[in-house]
């Protein structure tokens, strides 16, 4: 069967692509992990925040002639601010409501954002006109996209940065305390509401970063964030819902599974491969890759 023949070139290419894709997934997922870890709220509008960031970055590049990577000076604060406003305006009012209300709220925000984008920008695919999308270099027989490598580096920096903030700053330690026991944290003087807003803003800010990194090689559409958003939930669950390192590893696992699946399996089977890995992890390590089982 010639169809199943696997060339080592393809496998190496898949490993590289999978690793780089995994880093990007981790970057998108780290915000979900952070927000859920601290607030116990899943932000289902996560992918749409990313999409908004991508439009901002796109228009800065297309309209104002920015270098795609320079757009982070706008996208990171802009998406973080959007997170703060949405948190203050909506989420903070229903923090003690049943989880279902919170899910419905974030789902609704996501739908509104997506459809607003459709209304304003239509379904066109917008790609920046720049040398970045095609920039690449050779690594042996494999071809490596330069913007993909930059995105991976950005993901590593973001994960390290968040880990640093959580461990070494007051507000970060407050976030960890609130995550462990919100009442106890409040009793010892942590402003839980402020910590929540901080977590939500920081989680959103990572999407601003992801948006700028993505725009360098990806077209923007109103549904551009939806796919990565869903993959991010997969990564978050796989990583163990509150571990930043776990989230990063899970991103790599999902990314590698997706690309190796695409390299090895025929037809549509390749896409099932990622989900098989996911299900296997859920069966054998339901608490996630790195988290300890909760008492």
């Amino acid at each position: 069967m010639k169809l199943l023949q696997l060339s080592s070139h393809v496998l190496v290419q898949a490993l590289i692509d999978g690793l780089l894709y995994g880093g990007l997934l981790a970057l998108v997922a780290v915000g979900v992990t952070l927000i859920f870890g601290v607030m116990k709220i899943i932000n289902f509008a996560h992918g749409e925040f990313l999409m908004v960031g991508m439009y901002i970055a796109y228009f800065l590049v297309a309209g104002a002639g920015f270098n795609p990577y320079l757009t982070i000076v706008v996208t990171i604060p802009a998406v973080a601010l959007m997170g703060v406003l949405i948190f203050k305006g909506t989420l903070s009012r229903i923090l003690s409501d049943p989880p279902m209300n919170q899910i419905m709220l974030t789902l609704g925000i996501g739908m509104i954002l997506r459809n607003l984008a459709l209304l304003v920008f239509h379904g066109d695919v917008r790609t920046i006109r720049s040398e970045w999308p095609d920039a690449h270099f050779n690594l042996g027989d494999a071809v490596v996209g330069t913007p993909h490598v930059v995105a991976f580096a950005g993901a590593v920096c973001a994960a390290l940065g968040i880990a640093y903030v959580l461990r070494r700053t007051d507000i970060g330690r407050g976030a960890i305390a609130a995550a462990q026991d919100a009442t106890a944290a409040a009793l010892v003087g942590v402003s839980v509401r402020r910590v929540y807003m901080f977590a939500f803003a920081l989680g959103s800010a990572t999407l601003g970063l992801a948006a700028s990194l993505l725009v360098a090689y990806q077209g923007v559409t109103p549904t551009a964030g939806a796919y990565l958003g869903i993959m991010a939930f997969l990564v978050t669950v796989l990583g163990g819902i509150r571990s930043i390192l776990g989230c990063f590893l899970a991103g790599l696992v999902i990314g590698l599974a997706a690309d190796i699946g695409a390299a090895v399996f025929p037809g549509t089977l390749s896409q099932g491969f990622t989900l098989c890995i996911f299900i296997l992890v859920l069966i054998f390590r339901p608490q996630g890759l790195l988290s300890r089982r909760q008492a």
Partner: protein
Amino acid sequence: MHRSLEPKHAALRIGVYALLVVVAAALLAACGNDTNANTDGTTNGTSSPKVIKIGSLWPLTGPVAKIGQECVQVVEMAVDEINAQGGIKSMGGAKLEIVSGDTGSAPDIGLGEARRLVEQEKVDIITGTYQSTVAIPVSQYCERARVPFLVGIAAADVITESGLQWTFRTAQTTHNYGKGQVELAVALPTLVEGGAFPEVKTAAVLWENSEFGQAVHAANLTYLVQHHIEVVADVSYDAMSPDLTTQVSRVKAANPDVVLTSTWLNDAILIRRARAKLGMEQPFIDAVGGTSVDSFGEDLGPLADGQLLMTDFEPETANEAGQQAYNDFKEQYRGDFSSYATAYQGIYVIAKALENAGSTDPDKLQAALVNVKLVAADGDKIILPMDTLQFDEKHQLKSEPLGVQWQNNVMVPVFPDAYAKYPVLLYNE
């Protein structure tokens, strides 16, 4: 014994009730139909209507809203032209009127809108839709409601393959595009300038995994086998994937003579970029997908050059009427007519059928559509590449797609011979 009978009795009783309800519902429905038929019959008997309502169903909101709006513009342009030329003459110059519905790209919304158009707006015929997933429930509804449905763009084979009496289609089938791709591949040695292209012995198929891609893929495989071309790589992907380098590198590793693809827009761009990055030299032949859209050329610039694809309409080889329509549309709406040519042609088919039927009586109109025949030489407006236009026994327009190639950032006709104004160029990286 005694006890065991009781539930049976109960079941029997429920069964009888259920049967009664069903019979009553059927009777009611039948009466409803009868009254409808009667009123329709009498209106048609007494006087010809002055206005003939054409329901038009396109996605006016949702991800392809812009395309849907252009569909409406194309259809309205045709209606305006027909009305300006005196409307339907056999019906005393009756004017056509478009009643617009929005499918929102969703089957259930599309179906609801079809219902509204028929039951409330009382349209005489429906044209649409963009997506096959919407066309399928609408075609089934029109079959029950006995309203003719002319499919302008949706391409899934099943729409005209399931023997529906009230559904007609001026658009190509997905199968036809898939077949065209293979025929173009086989003809490459004769099409390439200087005969520099060897006989095609192997091919790779690279396809997005939605219904469209699956149908193209199936047709690709059928005709590749028929032409004794070996499939050396068979790779599918999710069109939402943010990167397709691995998939394309797998195709490259198999070293095929040609690559057949079926795409949407974003993935078409990703494939083209990956092809360039990996330094592939083989020609890529797409079905009608993402490569046929203007933004494919706009986004990729010179990287788009060399891409081959199948299409329905190409302005340079189009007949005079086709070029006229193309230019008019560009002038009036600044849109790309080529993607909607089959929808535009559909309105002229409807007008011809109305002319022949001389009535909006559903049965007469349906029969007129079955037998409709447009002959360019007789002054009928045909803009698609053909001299006569007819439906086959499945109510599907008999036609073959054209092969075009992106050259210097525009699509030019290269296949089949009758329309090939340019040789195929090899753009080797």
